[in-house]
């Protein structure tokens, strides 16, 4: 893990400007939706809904790091041929991927959280800024089910050979079913049930309650813990993938 952290830090800090620009997209997109809502309602858009979407955008950044970025990092070490070396070294490939995730969370997630917290502090007061930072920390810890789902999908990476289709679908699934830009109650019942089966919406709702409601809804805590089954599944599938790669020796098949 320590070697992975060192590697991730070196690579991440080299492109810090680009990563910081991702953080800047958070208020930009939230403002864009607000502008659209403002136009759609003839100038009567609710500011609370803007804050809802602002926090939602920060959560999307965290979810993006936990899903798409892990797939792309996996692709990077696989296509570059480093996976075989990592598998043979004391620093395990999974620990390296998680180290990348951790560093991206700190660099990009924190950047997005600080920008959002500043806006929220201006509109609602400094206490809410602290709550936002705490909420993002909670979201980071409880994002492991999303990581698990990504690891399970990574099983298909050697056969698909490029993470684009997987990361595209996973990315849009988070934003569609995740309740980050609108509550899932706007959906028909079937989609609400589907949304409940995926580990996004409850995760986002829990973090948002901390940020904007200054409370941790304990009734959702059990459900949130239940989603950790996704993480367990991801670890199991990852084990299968590594066993398959070792068995056939196809660490860099493309």
């Amino acid at each position, binding site marked *: 893990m320590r070697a992975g952290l060192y590697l991730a830090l070196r690579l991440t800090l080299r492109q810090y400007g680009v990563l910081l620009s991702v953080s800047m997209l958070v208020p*930009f997109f939230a403002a864009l*939706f607000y502008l*659209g*809502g403002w136009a759609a309602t003839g100038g009567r858009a609710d500011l609370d809904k803007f804050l809802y979407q602002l926090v939602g955008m920060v959560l999307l950044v965290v979810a993006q790091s936990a899903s798409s970025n892990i797939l792309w990092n996996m692709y990077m070490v696989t296509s570059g041929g480093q996976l075989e070396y990592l598998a043979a070294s004391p620093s395990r490939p999974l620990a390296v991927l998680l180290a990348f995730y951790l560093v991206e969370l700190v660099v990009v997630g924190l950047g997005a959280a600080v920008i959002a917290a500043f806006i929220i502090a201006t509109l609602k007061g400094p206490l809410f800024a602290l709550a936002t930072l705490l909420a993002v920390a909670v979201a980071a810890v409880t994002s492991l089910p999303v990581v698990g789902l990504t690891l399970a999908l990574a099983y298909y990476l050697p056969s698909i050979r490029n993470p684009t289709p997987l990361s595209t679908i996973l990315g849009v699934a988070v934003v*569609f079913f995740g309740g980050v830009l609108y509550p899932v109650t706007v959906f028909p019942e079937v989609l609400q049930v589907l949304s409940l089966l995926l580990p996004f919406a409850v995760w986002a709702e829990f973090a948002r309650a901390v940020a904007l409601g200054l409370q941790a809804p304990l009734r959702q805590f059990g459900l949130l813990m239940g989603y950790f089954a996704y993480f367990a599944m991801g670890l199991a599938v990852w084990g299968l993938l590594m066993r398959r790669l070792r068995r056939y020796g196809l660490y860099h098949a493309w």
Partner: protein
Amino acid sequence: MPGDLLRELWLITRLNFRPLSFFVASMLSTAMWLVVVVLAIAWYGGDISQTARHLFWGMAVFLIFSEQVWGAAVFNTLARTGVVDYVAATPVKLHMYLFAVSLAYSAVAAPGVLILLGIYYLLLGEFPPLAQPVNFAAAFVIFVTAAALLVSLFTFLFIRLRNPNFVVNVLQWAVPLSGGMIPPTAMPPEAAQFFLLSPFHYVIAPVVYSATGVWLADPPTTLALGAVVAVVFYALALYAAKSAMWRYRATGKWGVE
């Protein structure tokens, strides 16, 4: 020029559609993104069908422009790897070649627009209305031409940057937004007037206006100004191409190497 266009269209189409899984994933995500954007905006209290009707052509314009700009960003790699050197060695005029490439990329966005149309139909049981078809046709031709010329101009900026991704991201949003991708006619009049100051407004917003039938200014004047803006973009692209070629002949570099 027609030969360039057909060749680039064939090349770009092959590159974009060869992996079927990419195409299917892109189709699915485009459709879901349309629903997300409409829901995220309509959640503020607007009527969903009205919001979709107002946003549809703006999203289509964004899709086409985005495809063109990211296509232009590839020239950063092409300049780095020496491919643009081969283009410079051919008798083809650089600005016309880039214009053909941008047009080809806008054609590649067509399946995405068709998917948007399909999803719109599935959601609302009708196709997005076209209030003024003749004006729409004129506005669409002006938009595609002006956008391709503008993107040709941007290409000369992208081949000078080490990593153009940030600038591409900014441009792909700044141009359609300041051009009226979200229809200014739906905004309060005090805010809408500011759009008249943007040159992009005269090439982008007419597509939306002619589809919804509500214009911010007189339609013939707006369309004529759009044509003038397209001519200005052509002149700028020509100047940028001549400068880039002159610099390349003098130094042997495009800027990014």
